[in-house]
């Protein structure tokens, strides 16, 4: 069930349909299903560790594949993902609320276009642009590029989530004398939470992947290991960079899934 196919939602024509992802409604998971993913990822990491241990590393490979370098790259990557997603949320959710209020109807198209452009421009292009035009490099520049890229799914899902709330419920709320803000806070937002969270989850995954490109503008991350492997043609290094990025993406997706389960209002 995708929110955009929901009948009776007024303004969805302005919202491109494909990216509005809503969570599949499902039963609360069993303990065993919660354990599967961490166990699987743990096994992947163990396998990777044993594989690297079995290789004889030359000085180039050792420079990338040592505990302190990998730990540093991993931490940088987590920071890039977390900070960029934080800014995505504090920009996109209020903006989504703002754009679904009736009085902002005429700005809707323009702001959605801006968000669309952010996602249409490739991240690496944006990074290069920041570096060449503004001499803007490093962590902050990477955050700007990542946020621009990931704002759209959260913004779109916030809008879709709010718009799909049944008009009759809002009507009933107003009829009970609840203020506009009260209706938003106590009825609309709680009902939109599952769809907003799905957007945040999408943004997180986008950011984990796109953050590998931050290596090109001095912002580090697992991309540093990946690029080092590619530029020196060292397969083992490439594999470690790629597998760790994939493991991190799956882990973050898993944690976001748990957050969805926990934060989803009871009874939905």
């Amino acid at each position, binding site marked *: 069930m995708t929110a955009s196919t929901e009948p009776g939602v007024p303004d969805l024509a302005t919202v491109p349909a494909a990216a509005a992802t809503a969570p599949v409604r499902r039963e609360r998971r069993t303990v065993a299903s919660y354990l599967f993913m961490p166990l699987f990822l743990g096994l992947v990491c163990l396998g990777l560790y044993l594989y690297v241990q079995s290789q004889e590393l030359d000085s180039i490979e050792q*420079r990338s594949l040592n505990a302190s370098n990998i730990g540093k790259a991993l931490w940088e990557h987590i920071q890039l993902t977390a900070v960029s997603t934080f800014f995505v949320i504090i920009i996109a959710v209020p903006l989504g609320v703002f754009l679904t209020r009736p009085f902002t109807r005429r700005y809707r198209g323009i702001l959605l276009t801006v968000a669309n452009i952010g996602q249409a421009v490739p991240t690496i292009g944006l990074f290069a642009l920041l570096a060449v035009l503004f*001499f803007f490099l490093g962590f902050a520049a990477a955050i700007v590029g990542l946020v621009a890229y990931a704002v759209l799914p959260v913004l779109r899902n916030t809008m879709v989530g709010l718009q799909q709330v049944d008009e009759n419920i809002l009507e009933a709320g107003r009829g009970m004398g609840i203020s506009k803000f009260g209706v938003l806070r106590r009825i609309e937002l709680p009902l939109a939470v599952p769809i907003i969270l799905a957007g945040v989850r999408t943004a997180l995954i986008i950011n984990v992947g796109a953050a590998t490109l931050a290596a090109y503008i*001095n912002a580090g991350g697992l991309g540093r290991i990946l*690029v080092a492997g590619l530029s020196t043609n060292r397969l083992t290094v490439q594999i470690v960079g790629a597998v760790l990025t994939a493991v991190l993406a799956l882990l973050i997706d898993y944690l976001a899934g748990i957050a969805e389960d926990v934060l989803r209002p009871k009874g939905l």
Partner: protein
Amino acid sequence: MNVRSGKASVVVLGGVLALVLSACGEDAGSGGGGGGGESGGGELDGAELTVGAKEFAESKILAQITAQALENAGATVDDSSLSGSATVREALEAGEIDMYWEYTGTGWVNILGNTTEDLPEDLFTAVSEGDMENEIAWLPAAPMNNTYAIAVSSAFAEDNSLKSISDAAAYLADNPDDGTLCAASEFLNRDDGLPGLQTTYEVEFSEVVEVDLGLIFTQLGDTCNFGEVFSTDGRVVANDLVVLEDDLEFFLPYNAALTMRQETLDEFPAIADVMAPISEALTDEEITALNAAVDVDGETEEDVATQWLEDNGFLE
């Protein structure tokens, strides 16, 4: 062939027709195809070859020079692969292309998987012998040496009277905070890059800014005082930069050489004869000027190659 203009393909088509006709006229002796006939200057009549390139200007210029010289000697060259790709070595081994220009230093470290701690005296011989195992032949290397270099803006060099890397090391010992270096990933990870440089010159760069290779030129003099560049890059002069002399001869030689599959060379040994004088003429000065014509003045690799071959009398 579809890369070319219509006019050029008509010419090539005409050439192919002429070849077919002349082959029919004489006898159908297209077996080995090696030495061919002296008449018409076509040592490579009947050869159908593909020249590949890496994805930067110098490699594409070298590929164009090669393609045009081989065509001049009678070969038919499919230039659809001349645009350059990152996987050119794999393409060579797989037989998708017949030849491309590779660098001795790259051959030693990236292809043969060695490090520079065990660097041989004669790198070219070691690389060409090592690559025989893979059935890849290296034609004699050109004098041009596109190695790593450390560049600074000419103003910075003048203000602090820096001419060599030793000067820079001495300067940085007194002004440690000025040691900002812009460099790309490969340089930072290789023994013959930053790690070895710092040991050899006993210098420490206070801050290393890892960026994409193409961004270094714009950042030099702004984000960084020092930058990693390639010695034959045309943009060094165009951006008013000065290359610091490697006075301790630390950087590995990166002489360019045409590499091809051994079977191609066995089939058409005349390729080596055609390319020998051209390779010899490719000095640092020559290739740097050609690179600048493409990277700075915006000319096409094809035009630059034609002009150079004509100026040096390699085209009839």
